[in-house]
């Protein structure tokens, strides 16, 4: 059996009195699309934040590519090649689309303008941003320099997904990427997810949308009460089964229960 690309064991995260992650395990195989499903508040977002470095778990360990890692800031996860679309989107509303896409990894002008005067290479950044948005079919965005706050929720979501897809080199994490999107845009995102996988990059997809999950996922991690409840193969179970496992209405077979 191949080793997981990203692996976690015994993750614990408490917020005051709330235990968001309760000795949670996690495995992402190379090249797969892993869906994470679970009730609201089950701790899905906390899990992926613990993986990406956005929160530091109180206990537990994480391995990337077999090497133990301990991220204490989201920048560290990004440097290791893990790119995340957070549920809250993480955009600076007053800044432009291009600025947001390149936030934290800006491109500087070539030559002295860049090295001494540290000038941003706006044309290059804008060109790149425009391309990425076109790939997602977000052609209705007229002006790459408009502030993100002038975009609709769906457009913002699209920008965030484009950013992750463009820069993720090892793992891409998408926390409810289609939540704010219309039908057509959701379609594009699903296609994009499959494109990315085709590039060999594995994806973690959190979603409440069962049809989407069952359409694209290779495996489904069912999250419940702060831990991995079971992992199912979407070809072996129906959506109703998954929802039943997730809500506790039905117990998964012993074999699937995680240790």
């Amino acid at each position, binding site marked *: 059996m191949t080793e997981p690309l990203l692996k976690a064991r015994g993750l614990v995260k408490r917020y005051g009195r709330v235990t968001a992650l309760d000795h949670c395990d996690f495995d992402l195989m190379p090249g797969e699309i892993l869906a994470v499903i679970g009730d609201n508040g089950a701790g899905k977002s906390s899990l992926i934040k613990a993986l990406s470095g956005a929160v530091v778990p109180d206990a537990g360990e994480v391995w990337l590519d077999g090497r133990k890692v301990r991220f204490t800031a989201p920048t560290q996860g990004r440097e290791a090649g893990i790119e995340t679309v957070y549920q809250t989107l993480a955009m*600076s509303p007053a*800044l432009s689309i291009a600025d947001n896409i390149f936030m934290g990894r800006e491109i500087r002008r070539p030559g002295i303008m860049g090295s001494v005067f540290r000038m941003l290479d706006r044309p290059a950044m804008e060109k790149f941003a425009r391309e990425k948005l076109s790939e997602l079919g977000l052609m209705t965005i007229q002006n790459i320099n408009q502030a993100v706050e002038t975009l609709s929720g769906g457009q913002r979501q699209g920008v965030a997904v484009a950013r992750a897809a463009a820069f993720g080199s090892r793992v891409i994490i998408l926390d409810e990427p289609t939540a704010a999107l219309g039908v057509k845009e959701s379609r594009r995102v699903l296609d994009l997810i499959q494109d990315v996988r085709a590039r060999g990059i594995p994806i973690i997809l959190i979603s409440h949308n069962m049809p989407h999950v069952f359409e694209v996922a290779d495996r489904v991690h069912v999250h419940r009460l702060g831990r991995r409840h079971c992992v199912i193969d979407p070809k072996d179970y129906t959506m109703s089964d998954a929802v039943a496992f997730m809500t506790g209405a039905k117990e998964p077979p012993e074999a699937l229960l995680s240790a």
Partner: protein
Amino acid sequence: MTDNPTTATADRVAEFDQGRKGFVHQVQHRLHVTPALVPLIVLVGSIAVFGALLGNKFFSPFALTLILQQVQIVGIVGAAQALVILTAGIDLSVGAIMVLSSVIMGQFTFRYGLPVEVAVVSGLAIGTAIGAFNGWLVSAMKLPPFIVTLGMWQIVLAANFLYSANETIRSQEIASEAPLLQIFGTTFKIGGAVFTVGAIFMIVLTLILAYVLRHTAWGRHVYAVGDDPEAAELSGVNVRATLISVYALSGLICAFAGWALIGRIGSVSPTSGQLANIDSITAVVIGGISLFGGRGSIMGMLFGAVIVGVFSLGLRLMGADAQWTYLLIGVLIIFAVAIDQWIRKVSA
């Protein structure tokens, strides 16, 4: 029952709503996109009005450059204040840092007999250090900027009085022994216009900061942190480092203001700068920078400072009682944010 309501509405979501774009809206939008425009308009307007009322007593190269000289200290400190306010903070210690730095430059030279260059560098370094300490308290200890800088204001000001023993270093001494301290006071005359190094420094500093804020990654990070620090953190900005660097830079700029202050008043006086906090905040606010952070342009701050200078000089030349000037500036402040609030509605 339309035959295809779905697509029709779906498209609309992603499109721009062109419906309400009347003239007022267009104006509102323009102003929203270019935040320094309002103060610029107010500035040009007020120069025009005072020019009309006072003739070339006011509308002369001499008077107009005089305004620049008079606002130079507020303008420089205002640049520091603007940086901090862009991160949704506030710095009440600017005036105190400025004065302490100028006192250090003077005392290091005259009390300890250090070379004046060393004294200047020490002053700049201490200003930067105090700023950095503010930044550390704000970003690492997560204390509210208002309180941190309120406390620091008192601490630094008291330290200033204790250290200086309330002694003024006189202009003549400085001129003969350490003229470098007065370098910002050097004047150039071009026609009737009189420029000082300090006034030019204020303008150049603002232009550099405008460049840095707009065209470098650090500048974008400052805006992102002020806009939404959590989002900035998640999208890869080192929020703590950015905040500390902003407060430290603010301290450095205040120290430069202290140096410029020596140039302006000639001497080193520990009682200077008592109003620098309020004046710099006023310039920033009239300049259209949001106290909530993340919005506004540093050029606006410069216009804001000059607006106050224009009103002060104009009203003084008209013989108005100084209290009327203060009253008017109070009205101007409230008016400025009311306009700002109105413009902001466009983005709601």
